[in-house]
């Protein structure tokens, strides 16, 4: 221990802490106790991050909209989530008279459990992954697919037309963009040759000079990264894809009829899904916990991971403050007629990249194919839309 440099110790501080705590137990119980500690870490760190994010989001949106945001509770309003949490806890839990009691009760639990399961395979730092599975990527997407069911359960069991409409919108949107999400992740698997997330990070954790070999710095990686980001925004029902819970149209969508802490659980679930998808995008395209420059490797790996995740969260908030909500037909057209074909082309480009060997030629070819496809399909679908100057009937 004394021989390891300080930066390595800091890098592994949570692993060392876990080993030290587990060391007090007999050897037979150690693996189980280590797993329990890992789970405790996940279910304490990410909700804490959620509490912080709500403040940042409200203050950030306030800044973008020329107002203050929360500034009453604590210094600069930073204890607002505490007040919100207490409020959610002491509110009455209202269940509609005609609601389907069991399904109505189970829906938020299914959501929270499946969202938390996704974190199990995310490598949040060097040697810091709860379950290093051979097919971790598949596990992550399997859990993501299971959350759709909770959206349906919540919407259907409430016996409310707004809930049901929100659920239908939500499921249609999640299914459409999940295809894109999976396909853009497949190109990583094609290059890395592994479904294990820690191996994917390891493959990106090398440097040319001081610059890293992240997948986002390749043509197919950049395209995949952007598509993954769009699909992740849609999966988590964030603006501009927030049709399932558009306040001005269908109250709160599928969780209209939830109150008190169950409402808070849906709220938490949405943010946790944001964290886990941001973490997945970081792992797949941005090198996970590896440092952006080789000279910055002395900073602990977990700081890099959470830093990248928080940058994603900031972009989510930024986009929410900038873009208006899409219409349902625009949403579907965008998914099936633009992003999905582009992701299929990206698969072909990735295969070309894999088999063309080293050299500058593959950069030119793959960039050219992707750019040509992007421009041509984009132009074609724009022409069909007849988008021009808008004419106002009464305001001219």
């Amino acid at each position, binding site marked *: 221990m004394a021989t390891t440099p300080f930066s390595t110790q800091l890098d592994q501080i949570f692993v060392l802490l876990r080993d030290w705590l587990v060391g007090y137990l007999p050897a037979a119980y150690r693996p189980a106790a280590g797993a329990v500690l890992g789970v405790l870490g996940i279910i304490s760190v990410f909700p804490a991050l959620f509490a912080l994010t709500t403040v940042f989001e409200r203050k950030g949106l306030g800044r973008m909209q020329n107002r203050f945001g929360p500034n009453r509770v604590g210094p600069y309003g930073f204890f607002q989530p505490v007040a919100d949490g207490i409020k959610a806890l002491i509110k009455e839990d209202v269940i509609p008279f005609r609601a389907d009691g069991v*399904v109505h009760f189970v829906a938020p639990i299914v959501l929270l459990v499946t969202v938390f399961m996704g974190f199990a395979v995310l490598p949040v730092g060097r040697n810091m992954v709860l379950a290093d*599975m*051979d*097919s971790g990527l*598949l*596990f992550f*997407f*399997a*859990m*993501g*697919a*299971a959350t*759709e*069911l909770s959206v*349906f*359960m919540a919407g*259907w069991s409430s016996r409310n037309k707004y809930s*049901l409409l929100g659920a*239908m919108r939500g*499921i249609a949107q999640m*299914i459409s963009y*999940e295809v894109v999400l999976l396909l853009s992740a497949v190109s990583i698997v094609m290059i890395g*040759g*592994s*479904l294990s997330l820690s191996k994917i990070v390891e493959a990106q954790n090398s440097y040319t000079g001081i610059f890293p070999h992240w997948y986002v710095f390749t043509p197919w990686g950049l395209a995949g990264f952007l598509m993954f980001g769009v699909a992740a925004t849609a999966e988590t029902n964030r603006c501009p894809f927030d049709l399932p819970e558009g306040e001005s149209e269908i109250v709160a969508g599928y969780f209209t009829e939830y109150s008190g802490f169950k409402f808070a659980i849906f709220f938490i679930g949405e943010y946790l899904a944001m964290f886990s998808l941001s973490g997945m995008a970081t792992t797949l395209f941005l090198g996970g916990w590896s440092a952006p420059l080789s000279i910055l490797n002395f900073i602990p790996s977990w700081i890099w991971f959470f830093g990248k995740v928080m940058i994603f969260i900031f972009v989510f908030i930024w986009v929410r403050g900038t873009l208006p909500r899409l219409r349902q037909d625009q949403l579907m057209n965008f998914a099936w007629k633009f992003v999905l074909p582009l992701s299929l082309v990206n698969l072909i480009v990735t295969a070309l990249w894999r088999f063309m060997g080293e050299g500058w030629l593959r950069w030119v070819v793959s960039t050219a194919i992707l750019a040509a496809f992007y421009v041509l399909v984009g132009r074609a679908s724009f022409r069909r839309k007849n988008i021009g100057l808008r004419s106002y009937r009464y305001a001219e």
Partner: protein
Amino acid sequence: MSVVFYLLAAMTIAGGLAAVLLKQLVHAALAVTVAFAGLALLYLDLDAQFAGFAQILVYIGAVTILIVFAILLTRSSDLPKEGVFSGTWAVGLMIAAGVFAVLGWAVLASVRVVPQQSPAPAVTVRDIGNALVGRYALPLEIVGLLLTAATVGAVIVAMHEKERPKG
């Protein structure tokens, strides 16, 4: 046979029975999900990670959602007045028993034909992938073609017919 196996088997069978016996169609669909989840966990219990996760991804993530959508889009989710049980349930029971008997016979006979070689072959995802694009490439292509044909057919069935002038 461990305790885990019996728990998962009980969960799967309970889910399947509930799917058949429940009156509310959406409840039945959700019960099928429980049965699917039980099957996936059984695969995981057998150390078949890929099969287990694929089961969750495909059956819980897609098939159940499809069933639910079909229920919601085709009829109101209220209970039908005349009951949900088919009048010919006895015949159905006989057919099911026959299928189960054939499957059971095949499984039991295979134990004698192929004796237990190694305790558990370690099959990684890489092996499955290599087998799919190598030895089993043709069946994979055929399944892909079949699915494409089914998709095209579904779109054609669902498409609005354009009014054609008769001539």
